[in-house]
């Protein structure tokens, strides 16, 4: 095993709690187990702090009336319990953390709260998963008219309220929470190979196509359409 592969082992041990507990990792005796565990827990709290701040920003804005701040879950027993099985960047872990946040901030302060939580959960879950860090070929820079491609993890959200009309307002100053029109709305949430999350309104054609990913219908790719939420998920690597 070369040094780069050894470094990957250390990174995996810090990111992947079950692997960290495995005989395979422990038998390597590469580092003090107690220190690795403490640093891994520190990293996990930091990792999900950044994601909760980013993806649950609308719940954070609503905390002005709910007094329930999404990041508070990071100091609650439910999150501590999750640390024993957490795998940073894994979709199941992202969903489990998002569910902790949803359970904590849920309420009826606004009628569209349920939709809002599902939307934020979808963003956080879709962002999870392996990503490409270095471009050796073509990826996000494909031509605007390139054929559509169904990316793993793409989610179709069926909402009762037209959330896109209210999301920007939630982040502006307000005294009473803004209203959202009650109108069936379908949103497609997907991410690029580099982990950038984008959201678009889903037309019937897109819904049909998503249900049949082998189809190659000649309609404009949703990649090329304006995205109504600047939902980039380039999360900072803190120093």
């Amino acid at each position, binding site marked *: 095993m070369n040094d780069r592969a*050894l470094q990957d082992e250390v990174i995996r041990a810090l990111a992947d709690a079950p692997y960290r507990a495995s005989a395979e990792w422990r038998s390597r005796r590469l580092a003090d187990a107690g220190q690795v565990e403490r640093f891994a827990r520190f*990293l996990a709290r930091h990792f999900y702090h950044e994601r909760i701040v980013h993806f649950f920003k609308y719940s954070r804005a609503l905390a002005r009336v709910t007094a329930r701040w999404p990041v508070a879950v990071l100091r609650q027993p439910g999150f501590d319990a999750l640390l024993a099985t957490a795998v940073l960047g894994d979709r199941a872990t992202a969903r489990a953390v998002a569910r902790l946040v949803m359970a904590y901030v849920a309420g009826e302060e606004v009628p569209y709260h349920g939709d809002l939580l599902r939307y934020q959960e979808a963003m956080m879950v879709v962002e999870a998963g392996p990503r490409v*860090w270095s471009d050796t070929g073509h990826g996000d820079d494909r031509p605007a008219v390139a054929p559509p491609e169904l990316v793993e993890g793409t989610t179709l959200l069926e909402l009762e309220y037209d959330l896109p009309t209210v999301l920007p307002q939630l982040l502006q100053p307000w005294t009473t929470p803004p209203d959202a029109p009650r109108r069936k709305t379908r949103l497609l949430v997907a991410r690029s190979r580099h982990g950038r999350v984008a959201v678009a309104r889903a037309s019937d054609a897109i819904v049909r196509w998503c249900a049949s990913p082998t189809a190659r219908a000649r309609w404009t790719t949703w990649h090329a359409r304006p995205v109504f939420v600047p939902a980039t998920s380039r*999360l900072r*690597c803190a120093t």
Partner: protein
Amino acid sequence: MMVGAFYNPHLGAELAAASTIDHLAMADPPAAGDRHWPAIKQRYTLLLHDYLGQLSEPLDDRAIERARSLAGLYDSPWVAEHFQCLHTEDGTYNLNYVFPPLYTEEFLARFVANANALKARLDQPLVMENIPGFFDVRASQMPEPIWLRRFFDATGTGFLLDLPHVWLEAHYRGLAPQAWLAEFPLEHVVEVHVAGVEQDRDLEGPWIAPTAPSDAMLDFMVHALTRCPGAKAVTFDAFSPSLTADVLFASVDRIRAAL
């Protein structure tokens, strides 16, 4: 000696009006809707301190173009990158937090080659920041300061000395910070980072925090600067939505007063 801080967009109004700060380090590009950005750009010397990648692998054209573009936008006197390797080669695992490489011959060769390649594509000098290790990995072949010295000798890049990182490593090794610092190649230092530390519950010890530097940290900074003849800037290293204007300005004032 320039004394500055990081650009924290939520403090944009205060920073745009401030007169006691010489430079701002830019951790993120300015947001499209940042109404303070034009004033910030006009008012300050800006230092590119974005996350470009990890030099254990070659930076691709896209990352290099991003670095060139941001350095041009900021008119940055130098470009900073970190001694870090935080995601696996296949992209499956990502720590999303600075993490040092193994201090081995293989990693030294990788970082030297990739830093030289990046340097050749930039119009500004490249500086590299040290990253703290909370624990030692037994596969490392040499102490971090030796590895860094060999890197700087081989590349001619500048050293962005993060003092709290050195202080923390000394703490967790049971060494005096001044003694551990003396091992580092300080003649290459171009910029120094100073910050506060706080107790962390998970680590059961101190770690970097968006808080003011202590008197002890400022004394450590003064001590370090007497050994860094090429240092041109000291930056209060705090970038967080929880950072308050009071802490930022008071920290910069205390750093300036200590110099």
